[in-house]
Each structure stands twice: as structure tokens, then as C-alpha cells.
């Protein structure tokens, strides 16, 4: 492994110690240590937002704590859902009496733990609602959209939900908006090289130099196509074509584009891909409202990137332009 580690089984706790060194003025840890919450949550919100998931996707998920975004986040072990405890603790801190929305990627482990947390919170009298993000078009056919995994698009759903919460939405309204945002968000990624879970010590999958895996999940779950590496333009063509086929655009709705680096791919290459994505969309008569480029949801040191398209109606257009300040992630709005 080419990794700077001490005990690989302790890497998440050690990371979180470092996180508190850097951001301890803004956030604090919950009693169990695995929940992180804003010290001074935005007063405008009636409903809190909690996100979370396995570690190894930094800056997701705790990097999206901040004004306009999440009030708290729960961190699991590497590529493993957080347990119910930090979720419960973060939700308690985030609740202002109006309940808490959970926004997280649609994975079996996360669903079990967040659902358990919701049950426990109900006993505390804290209402919750859940949006399981399912933007990864490679992970199930369109008819079974609800089974799809959540990947980089979750950040955009969270951004929209955060803005809506700041408008004072109720739990029901907020949950509806989050599902609406999820419905309009599609992602497809490509991997060019593997990643290694620190405590496993070996790459999660083999991917020889010169090959690509289309649709690989952000934990290295096998994708839909393996083949020789082609040019950046050809990759962009495939991604955009499949994304638009999965949800045909309505000509007058602009798109929010996110080119997300998975870890080892230099951001230079993400811009090369964005250039082609923009050209293709322009050819198709489609308008880009904004393009975000950077490492928003990583997969340790996986090589590759994903492209997300969010189809913006008027409400989403308003929400994605709202101010926000992620604790530790690239900017989401001007």
C-alpha cells in the first residue's frame, strides 16, 4: 500500500481527531465520537438535516456540514455505514423541534442503520424523514430506479435540501423536495484504477492499466462494462449519452453539471472532460446553468471520475443558487 497510516483499523478515529483540530471551532463531535455537528446551527431552519455514510469518500460526508447544507453527519468505518448511534446523536443535536431529514446514499447497510436510528429517535419524540439518494444510473435499470445506489449526485440533493430547509420548510415539505431533487439527478462514472481499503490492505478490485470500468460504484462495486481505455472525449460522449438517455432533457430546463474526481485523477482531466460535456450539451441545444468540478465524493485513491446532471426546474434553480458554505468541500454555489 502507498498509504500513510498507523493502525489501519483506527484510521477513521484518527482522521476525526484531525478533523477536530482543523474545524473544532465550527463543529463538535457527539458523545460516541462518530457524529459531527455544527456548534451554531442556522437559526432559520425548522428542520435539521443529517447526512452520513461510510468513510473513505471525503470530503463526503462531514465536509458538507455547514450553512446551507447539513447540520450534522455520521461517519462509518471505511466503506461501511455508520451505526445507528452517531446518527441518533447527530439528529438530536440537529433537531429544533421540527424533526430531522436524513439524506444519504441508497445502500443496504446505510438503510438498516438510519432506519434503526429513526426508530430510536421516534422514542425520543423526534420525527424523521428519509431521502435515499439513488442517482447512479449504472446500478439498476430505470424501471428499478429506487434500487439504484447513491453516488456524487447526493451532494446536489443535499445542497437543494439545505437551501429549502433555510427557507423554513416543514419536514414533509423538505422531504418532498429532497425526493424531487433526487428524481432529477443522474450520475454515471468511470474507473481507471482501483482503491484499497486500509484495513484490507489489498486493492478492492483488479483493473489493469489501459482498461476502464464503466459504472463502477464508489466502493469498487463492479460496473456495467469493462473495456480498453479510450480518449477523454469518447468517455465523455458515453457518459453524457447514457445520462441523457436515462432522463431525456426538457429543452428549456438548464442543467447543473458536476464532474467529480474519484481520488487519484488530477483535476486537470476533469476539466478536459467538462470541456467535452459542455460541447455535447451545447450541440444538443441544452444550457448549463453551472458546472462544478472537483473532488466532491471520492473513493479513497480510486482513479476515475463521474459526471452528474441535475435537471433544474424553477424551484431547483432557486435552491442550487442559494448561498452555502461547506466545512471542507469545494464550493457548491458562487
Amino acid at each position, binding site marked *: 500500500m502507498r498509504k500513510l497510516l498507523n493502525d489501519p483499523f483506527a484510521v477513521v478515529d484518527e482522521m476525526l481527531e484531525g478533523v477536530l483540530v482543523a474545524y473544532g471551532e465550527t463543529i463538535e463531535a457527539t458523545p460516541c465520537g462518530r457524529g459531527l455537528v455544527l456548534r451554531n446551527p442556522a437559526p432559520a431552519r425548522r428542520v435539521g438535516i443529517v447526512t452520513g455514510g461510510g468513510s473513505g469518500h471525503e470530503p463526503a460526508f462531514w465536509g458538507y456540514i455547514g450553512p446551507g447544507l447539513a447540520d450534522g453527519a455520521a461517519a462509518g468505518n471505511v466503506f461501511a455505514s455508520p*451505526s445507528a448511534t452517531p446518527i441518533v446523536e447527530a439528529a438530536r443535536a440537529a433537531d429544533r423541534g421540527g424533526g430531522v431529514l436524513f439524506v444519504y446514499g441508497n445502500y443496504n447497510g446505510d438503510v438498516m442503520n438510519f432506519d434503526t436510528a429513526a426508530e430510536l429517535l421516534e422514542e425520543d419524540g423526534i420525527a424523521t424523514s428519509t431521502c435515499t439518494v439513488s442517482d447512479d444510473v449504472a446500478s439498476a435499470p430505470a424501471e428499478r430506479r429506487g434500487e439504484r445506489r447513491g453516488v456524487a449526485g447526493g451532494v446536489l440533493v443535499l445542497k437543494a435540501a439545505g437551501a429549502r430547509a433555510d427557507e423554513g420548510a416543514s419536514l414533509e415539505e423538505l422531504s418532498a423536495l429532497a425526493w424531487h431533487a433526487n428524481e432529477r439527478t443522474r450520475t454515471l462514472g468511470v474507473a481507471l484504477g482501483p482503491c484499497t481499503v486500509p484495513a484490507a490492505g489489498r486493492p*478492492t478490485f483488479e483493473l489493469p492499466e489501459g482498461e476502464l470500468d464503466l459504472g463502477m460504484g464508489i*466502493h*469498487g*462495486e463492479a460496473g456495467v462494462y469493462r473495456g480498453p481505455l479510450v480518449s477523454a472525449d469518447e468517455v465523455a460522449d458515453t457518459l453524457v449519452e447514457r445520462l441523457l438517455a436515462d432522463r431525456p432533457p426538457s429543452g428549456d430546463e438548464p442543467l447543473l453539471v458536476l464532474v467529480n474526481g474519484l481520488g487519484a485523477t488530477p483535476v486537470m482531466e476533469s476539466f478536459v472532460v467538462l470541456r467535452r460535456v459542455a460541447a455535447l450539451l451545447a450541440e444538443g441545444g441544452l444550457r448549463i446553468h453551472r458546472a462544478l468540478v472537483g473532488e466532491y465524493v471520492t473513493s479513497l485513491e480510486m482513479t476515475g471520475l463521474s459526471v452528474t446532471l441535475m435537471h433544474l426546474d424553477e424551484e431547483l434553480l432557486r435552491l442550487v443558487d442559494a448561498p452555502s458554505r461547506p466545512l471542507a468541500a469545494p464550493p457548491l454555489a458562487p
Partner: protein
Amino acid sequence: MSADAGRLADWLELVLARTEAAQAELDGLDAVAGDGDHGVTMVLGWRTVVAGLKRGGTPGGLLRTGGGDFASVGGSAGPLWGTALLRAGRALGDAPTVALAGAHAAAEAALAGMCERGRCAEGEKSIVDALAPAVRALADAEALGLSAADALRAAAGAAAAGCDATRLMPALRGRASRFPDRAVGHRDPGAASCVIVWEAAADAFA
């Protein structure tokens, strides 16, 4: 056999040691269509359980606190095994020792809890495909009047056979279920780590 808390602790320590030894194999099975970390998660889970043994208690008490501890590692295995251990502990109550009938009832409760938590059933290529046959073997052994030691040996064999049978199954639960056929030909990692639990029981309570 009638196991006290000490024997139970020995069993859990053996489970941990064998899971640690099998970690790379379990990670590898999970890498086929999942994310390659099942060995890591099981090691972490059993470590917290074993670390918690020092709090002491009855066999049932140890399993109940162990269930909470295991759940704290999260992932898929955390809530599934956490619930299983918790329910088993509840079934045992606070008796100072456990005999075969108690063990069988506890295992039934564990299985039921896991299926509830995971919304899963046999035949879906998951932990349950090792756990359910083991529980049935215990029931059969009890009906036949076998010794506890023989019953656990039979359960371990049934778990292993159940695990082997997952090779042929498409994956219908968890991460691997997005492409059910991808892991056909391979054992389910969750079933494989469950076999270790039963084999350790057969050895620890022999």
C-alpha cells in the same frame, strides 16, 4: 454440556481469532461483487464484542451487551449481527448457564431478529443461508436427544453446507444484489463468516 459465562467468552475469543485469520479470505469473497471489506467489518465487530467481555455478566447479559457493541461497527454486518446477538441474549435471560435447549431457543431468536432487521430470508445468498440450516440442525439434534457437543458439531456442518450452497445462488441482498449473477460461483462472504461462528462453537463447547 452446560456453558457458563466463561465458556461463552472462550467461544467469542475463538470466533475473533479465527475471523482475524480468515480476514483476507472474507475480504476477497466480498471483493467479487461487493466492496471487499467484509473481513474488516467482522474483525472490527468481534473485536468490540471481545473487548466488552471484561464488563462481565451472565451468558445472556454478555450477548446483549455484545449485540450493542457489534452494532456499533455499522456497515451491514453491524446491525445484522448486533440484532442477532441481542435477541439471543434476550432469549437466554439471566440464567447463569446455558444448556442445549436454551442455546437452540437463543439461536432461533437470533435468526428471527436478523431476518427482520435485514428483511431477508433463506435462498438470497446471505448470512441467513448459513445461519438458518445451523438453527434447524440444532432443533433436529435436540429432537433426537443428541449431546450439546454433537448438536453444535451438526450445526457447524449444516452452516458450512449452507454456505457452500450459496455458490449457486444469485445475490439478492446487500451490495452484491445490484448484479445478482456476478457472484455466482463464489460463496457469500456473510455466510462464510457465519460458518466460523458455528465451527468455533462446536470447538469451544466440545
